[in-house]
């Protein structure tokens, strides 16, 4: 074995090895920069961070978890809707978050409670309530009712007084 040839062979081998080292370095660099390799670790860290953030929010902001979540526009909503609008039934200004209970009184607390009341007063009341799903009474009411009110207006005046009579302490 001649020395020079062995030397040349060694050099060649070193050359090849350097190429492969460069390949490995390049690939690892890519993996590192793209965060591909440590995905598990990274995700765990991010999870921990987001949990911490949520805890911090809770302690300062306060309510139930679900209500403090940010929507896709970055807005948060208070737990109870606070916008005020006009009830389409009685025309009173109502806080949106209290609309359902108001409607209950405004249109009659459920069917059973109303059904117990005398039919004539119920019919009269229902004739005034616009948009009421209780249209079962409509055929009767059209026969007996003397008040014909157009849609959407203050048709519940009679009811209103009736309500107050019932519910004011």
């Amino acid at each position, binding site marked *: *074995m001649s020395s020079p*040839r*062995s030397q*040349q*062979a*060694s*050099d*060649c*081998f*070193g*050359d*090849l*090895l*350097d*190429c*492969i*080292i*460069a*390949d*490995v*370095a*390049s*690939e*690892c*660099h890519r*993996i*590192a*920069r793209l*965060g591909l*390799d*440590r995905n598990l670790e990274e995700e765990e860290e991010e999870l921990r961070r987001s949990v911490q953030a949520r805890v911090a929010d809770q302690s300062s902001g306060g309510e139930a978890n679900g209500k403090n979540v940010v929507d896709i526009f970055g807005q948060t909503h208070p737990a109870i809707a606070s916008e005020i609008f006009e009830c389409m039934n009685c025309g009173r200004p109502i806080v949106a978050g209290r609309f359902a209970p108001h409607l209950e009184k405004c249109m009659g607390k459920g069917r059973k409670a109303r059904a117990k009341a005398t039919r004539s007063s119920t019919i009269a009341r229902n004739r005034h309530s616009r948009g009421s799903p209780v249209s079962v009474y409509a055929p009767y009411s059209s026969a007996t009712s003397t008040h014909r009110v157009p849609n959407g207006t203050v048709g519940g005046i009679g009811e209103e007084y009736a309500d107050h009579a019932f519910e004011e302490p």
Partner: protein
Amino acid sequence: MRASINRPPTPDAEEDPPQKELSLREIINIKLIESGEKEKLMELLRERLIECGWRDEMKALCRAYARKKGRKNVTVDDLVQVITPEGRASVPDSVKAELLQRIRSFLVSSSL
């Protein structure tokens, strides 16, 4: 050479580059590439290094380095420097022997 404000003329194709003549090393390299042997040797070496786990060891070194330095601060040069000493030293003897043998045969057969 005369100092000139003009761009120096583009060297002609036939002229040798004004460096030293091609060294023996370079000639060997050219012959390796032209014959396709370099490609084959590369593939062989890559395969052997993967089989023996050398590649995984090098990747582990890179990962550890990236973790330490922060993965966004890593450069390719960094990684090359990190791997090279260990990489050169940790090639299994059998792999090295096999490759050297093939290279030597090539040199002989190309009468270099």
